[in-house]
């Protein structure tokens, strides 16, 4: 770590969430804190011919009021989520994008599914009726970069913008990508991602993974780290965070919610969960080293929680190797067990949750889970009060990416930084 970077770590100043368990942090945090279970039968697929029936669906969200009608017709549901989350994040940060030099404010999102529902509708028109029936917005709506593009255009952001299509772990990698832009002189970045994968085409893509829970009971469908772990419940939704240059945030008098202190990423191969123990370990160690910290500093861990027996065992092994004898004492949690796993947005929602956990000094529980089959301190039942200074967020992609992000409480001394 270079002394020149001391104190230069980016800071989170705003969080916007559109999730199955709540719209906005005002709804999301109490639901997460109290372990609310938001999994249910998928209403968008009625009748549902697929073996996966339980999911985390964002109910009660209509684009009207969040998205201009002109933009609504040219965008997919995943972009509606991203636009709404960006709006909430900017409000939470009390940051008017017009007050920032346009070239100093960018947006970085993670992508996985893209605008699948919109895309399927147009492709159906193509094969049912012919090419002249395909709407021109198909050219932009399905695209992974649609969220970054629309958030950028809608808010007048002309700074560095992009999308990382890097598996689910890309949801953490975008914070490193944004950190790089901030280091190069940008003042602020909107960082996040959204998913809306509940159309037939997207369901078929997911079923091919062989990792989704086929349980029909919302109360037990997603049981990571238990003997009953039999896959995850998929989810839609997303989050956007305002991440700023620390100096710029300080100068405008922003409330700093958390410091993005370090990131690490590795790749261990598709469906090689046995190797992901080493992959996660090295990603986490790299993230802590970048933050100028050691594993002894970790106060809580937000788990990837694939709910696949091999994958869960590998993640537990990574924590044992990383934390040593502390592994059985450091609180670990998987709040997403309550609302599902939303692919590239899953880790972003975990980052949002970690920021809120730091703010409230509470580690939220793993909803619906009553036991842990590993020697880990999995938080179940009620949220646990902890004097949180440093939290570690882990994410794995179903195709082999392993990433880790270290977040710190804003009042902690910063010795390192991305």
């Amino acid at each position, binding site marked *: 770590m270079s002394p020149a970077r001391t104190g230069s770590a980016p800071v989170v100043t705003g969080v916007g969430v559109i999730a199955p368990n709540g719209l906005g942090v005002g709804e999301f945090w109490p639901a997460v804190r109290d372990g609310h279970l938001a999994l249910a039968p998928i209403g968008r697929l009625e009748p549902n011919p697929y073996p996966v029936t339980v999911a985390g669906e964002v109910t009660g969200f209509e684009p009207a009021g969040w998205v*201009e*009608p*002109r*933009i*609504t*017709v*040219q965008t997919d549901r995943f972009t509606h989520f991203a636009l709404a989350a960006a709006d909430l994040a900017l409000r939470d940060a009390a940051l008017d994008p017009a007050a920032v030099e346009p070239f100093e404010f960018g947006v970085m999102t993670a992508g996985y599914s893209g605008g699948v529902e919109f895309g399927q509708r147009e492709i159906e028109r193509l094969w049912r009726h012919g090419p*002249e*029936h395909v*709407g*021109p*917005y198909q*050219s*932009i709506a399905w695209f992974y970069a649609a969220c970054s593009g629309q958030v950028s255009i809608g808010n007048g952001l002309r700074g560095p913008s992009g999308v990382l299509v890097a598996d689910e772990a890309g949801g953490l990698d975008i914070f490193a990508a944004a950190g790089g832009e901030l280091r190069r002189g940008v003042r602020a970045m909107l960082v996040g991602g959204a998913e809306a994968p509940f159309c037939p085409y997207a369901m078929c893509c997911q079923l091919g993974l062989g990792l989704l829970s086929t349980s029909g009971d919302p109360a037990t469908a997603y049981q990571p780290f238990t003997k009953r772990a039999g896959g995850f419940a998929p989810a839609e939704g997303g989050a956007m965070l305002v991440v700023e240059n620390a100096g710029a945030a300080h100068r405008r008098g922003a409330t700093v919610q958390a410091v993005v202190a370090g990131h690490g990423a590795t790749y261990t191969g598709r469906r090689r969960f046995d190797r992901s123990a080493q992959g996660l370990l090295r990603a986490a160690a790299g993230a802590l080293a970048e933050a100028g910290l050691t594993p002894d500093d970790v106060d809580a861990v937000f788990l990837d929680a694939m709910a696949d027996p091999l994958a869960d065992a590998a993640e537990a092994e990574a924590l044992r190797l990383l934390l040593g004898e502390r592994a059985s004492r450091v609180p670990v949690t998987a709040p997403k067990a309550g609302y599902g796993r939303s692919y590239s947005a899953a880790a972003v929602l975990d980052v949002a949750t970690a920021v809120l956990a730091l703010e409230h000094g509470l580690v939220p529980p793993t909803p619906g889970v009553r036991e842990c089959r590993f020697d880990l301190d999995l938080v179940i039942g009620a949220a646990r009060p902890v004097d949180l200074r440093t939290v570690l967020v882990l994410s794995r992609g179903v195709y082999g990416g392993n990433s880790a992000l270290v977040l710190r409480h804003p009042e902690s001394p910063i010795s390192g930084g991305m």
Partner: protein
Amino acid sequence: MDTRLSPDDLAALISRCTGVPVTGEQITDPDRTFDDLGVDSLGLMGVLAELQREHGVSKNADLRPHQSPRELLALLPGRA
């Protein structure tokens, strides 16, 4: 195939295709362009495609955002 579109009908079609609220009065205003209304080139392409499919507008018809809805109205069969 319905080829008789009133200004109000055309306004409703444009609104449906582009999400931009448009009135019949705006359609007949010779000074108002699609740019003024907030209809971009992709939106206009969708409007033209619909008119070509359903309302007998020539496949060769072309229109750009700096032109007016009145010019689009003139492209409809029986109105030129």
